[in-house]
């Protein structure tokens, strides 16, 4: 069995996150989009790069749902991606990376795999 260790990166305080929207987290050289889905009391994290035109923009997009699935729409061309699986919902084939999120003592952590 391969053991996967998760390294929890401290992203921000809960009150720094945007309610029902996203913020961008600097994580070393990487940019991660962190979404606080206040309405559902859920947190999601994905890559900040929209694969369509390769723009660092997903954190500035609108979140929402299609059926039960939570999603994010890129502000540039409104390509949408599932926040739970990263799958592109706008017919294209590019998926985005997703990360686990946990909240402890008012701090938000993003799970990175080593």
């Amino acid at each position, binding site marked *: 069995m391969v053991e996967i260790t998760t390294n929890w990166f401290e992203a*921000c305080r809960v009150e720094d996150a945007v309610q029902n929207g996203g913020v961008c987290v600097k994580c070393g050289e990487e940019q991660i989009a962190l979404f606080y889905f206040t309405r559902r009391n859920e947190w999601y994290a994905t890559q900040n790069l929209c694969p369509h035109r390769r723009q660092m923009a997903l954190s500035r997009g609108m979140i929402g749902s299609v059926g039960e699935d939570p999603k994010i729409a890129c502000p540039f061309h409104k390509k949408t991606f599932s926040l739970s699986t990263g799958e592109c919902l706008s017919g294209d084939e590019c998926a985005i990376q997703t990360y686990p999120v946990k909240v402890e003592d008012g701090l938000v952590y993003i799970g990175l795999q080593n």
Partner: protein
Amino acid sequence: MVGHKFCEKITDKSDNFRIFVFGEEPRRAYDRVHLSEYFNGKTAEDLSLSHENWYNEKNITLYLGDPVKEIDRDNKTIHSNKGLTLSYDYLVLATGSSAFVPDIPGVDKEGVFVYRTIEDLELIKNYALNAKTGAVLGGGLLGLEAAKALIDLNLEETNVIEFAPRLMPRQIDSTGSLMLQTKLNALGLAIHTNKGTSSIEGTDRIESLKFNDGSELKTDILVISAGIRPRDELAKLCGIEVGTRGGILVNEFMQTSDPSVFAIGECALFNHNIYGLIAPGYEMAEVVAANLCDGNKTFNGFDMSTKLKLIGVDVASFGDPFTSEPDSRSILFEDTHKGIYKRINISNDGKYLLGGILIGEAEAYNMLLQTVNNKIALPPNPEDLILGSRGGNSQTENSGLAGLPDDALICSCEGVSKGQICDSVSLEGCESVDAIKKCTKAGTGCGGCIPMVKDLMLHTMKENGKYVRNVVCEHFQLSRQELYDLIKIHNLKNYEQVLDNVGKGDGCEICKPLVSSLLASIWNDMILKRGNDTAQDSNDRFLANIQKGGTYSVVPRIPGGEIKPDKLVIIGEVAEKYGLYTKITGGQRIDMFGAHLSDLPLIWEELIAAGFESGHAYGKALRTVKSCVGSTWCRFGLHDSVSYAIRIEERYRGLRAPHKLKSAVSGCIRECAEAQSKDFGIIATEKGWNLYVCGNGGSKPQHALLLASDVDSDTCIKYIDRFLMFYIRTADPLTRTAPWLNKMEGGIEYLRNVVVNDSLGMADQWEIEMQNIVDSYQCEWKTAIEDPEIRKRFNHFVNAPTEKDPSIKFDEMRGQKKAANWTTV
């Protein structure tokens, strides 16, 4: 491309084959149809037809940069250039074609290129750096594509030289060619037809072209695109039969003279024809794949109809474009004003459409092609097909679709029929174009059939008794107009409240901006108030226009286009300080591009301190009221158009609407402010003002119509109040005033009755509502910079607020910055 398609098709059908692919070029199969996009920013990877691991996933072994050198048919083996020997059960040749290079003296000089592969393009790109003028030899489809590529490389002058008397001689007639030439000339392309090239002059490198008629043309670079030559040398070498003028002979199963060897795509010669288009190539791939998997498919020739956008001009040719009397009759439409030419050829008895040509406007192409291919009986006035029905209610579009047989091919790229699309709606429950795309693959190729797919979907849903309601999205089973009333009645103040009270689910990128716009129109609260901020559209969210690369542009309001010199200085200083690109907009304002998100509040702090306010260029709101200088200076001016424009702009600034609003005031009938192209425009008359409404520029320009004449300034504003409130209340989402009026029953007469004669009895209420909005105006940017909670949102990184996005890159052009092209990381 065809070889790749074959791999896709056969791996979809069966796992029984072990597939080896040999390619001469160093990269995976790529999209040659859109090759010229390589010059406006697409990379080789963007053009690739598959991602890197695709071949692995499909268990296909790929050898790149290693062409097959020899086929040993007796032992059923091949030998590659790098020395590999493999045996085969079946061999598929998809060797394509190479550029045909005519035997002109000097053709080997430096600066002469062909246009075929990404490598060719790279050579051209490098050489063009030192070239000022360019020429393309060949005015066919590919030649014009190549000319577009040269234009994109910023050559000062680009020439197209065609031997035949017209452009695209295989697709269009001489009238069509003349129309196309006029359009291309306007785009900066010089066209020379009837020119035989006798030699290419120059010492080492090309300097000029000499023609048979004795004339000469100076040029620094020449791209030859004079046709294609099938790559049949490998087949020839092993004794497979080829045509006298090239091409590997195949039967209807795409089999060559050796039954275990097949040829597909541009290298294959079927029934004396080489098929140089992508759709027949894909069809050939399908035939071979199907037959190897025990199917039974034959290739029966292919319709060479085509529709494309050449350097921005629509060109289509379908069926038999050239047939003429006595075999048939033609209906011609020529509009040199708009640059439109249409020709349809019909049978002598007037019953059937045989073919035709469309230049400048090709919307009818899909329907016309279907009419030809399915031998659909023509309506009594076949000219309606290209002119649209004049008078009476037209049902042609829909009845045409309904009249198609089930096997009518709708998507020719993927070979999807009308029946399959209708079934996906009726049986599989697809009720969106995306769902149909996923289910049938229709519309995933060139995308040209998508409007038909959508119409078919709506048509089928209606037939199945499904009421197609004009609802916002899955979260609101309501129209925009219904939502407007509900928000008012229930006194709903933010997006979440609206969703909780009259919607369901969690919202989406369609309903959020729409509801936000309604809230702003009704209550005129600061749009970034908590609870509404993240429901705003991309630009409203940050009160600026997001641009390529992730920076923003800033447009301060300059009412009526009037600005004092000291304020111009401030704009210049701010732009310099924050390193912004500046450009005058079409609406008499100054746009500053390239601002980092975190600089926006700082920029606005300085602008507001100097007396500027938001220009709302980011909102679906009133943008600008353009004006001519008017009677204060102009010797023709009747009234002071600038003062009136400022009054109007200051009245309606920030007003949120279903779409953006533009206006203008002209001081006399010379109309220098172009008021008749605006949502509402005002022109001075001897006795007062004429008010025009519902015009717009954009992709479908439309002139505004006269609503009221010779009214005084206050009355004119009253009418505008009513007009705008009526529009805001009743228009569909993202509908500008022109299409709103087009859909209105009774048209301008009805509108005039409502606005001028108050036929609905709403005038008082609307005027009060408008006055409330006017009175509650605030500069959003002023509020934003004064509120630390809102200000905080303008940092790129939540955990490193002082750092800017390091991925933002700029290039330089004419001494200013410009956004780096898409897809640079």
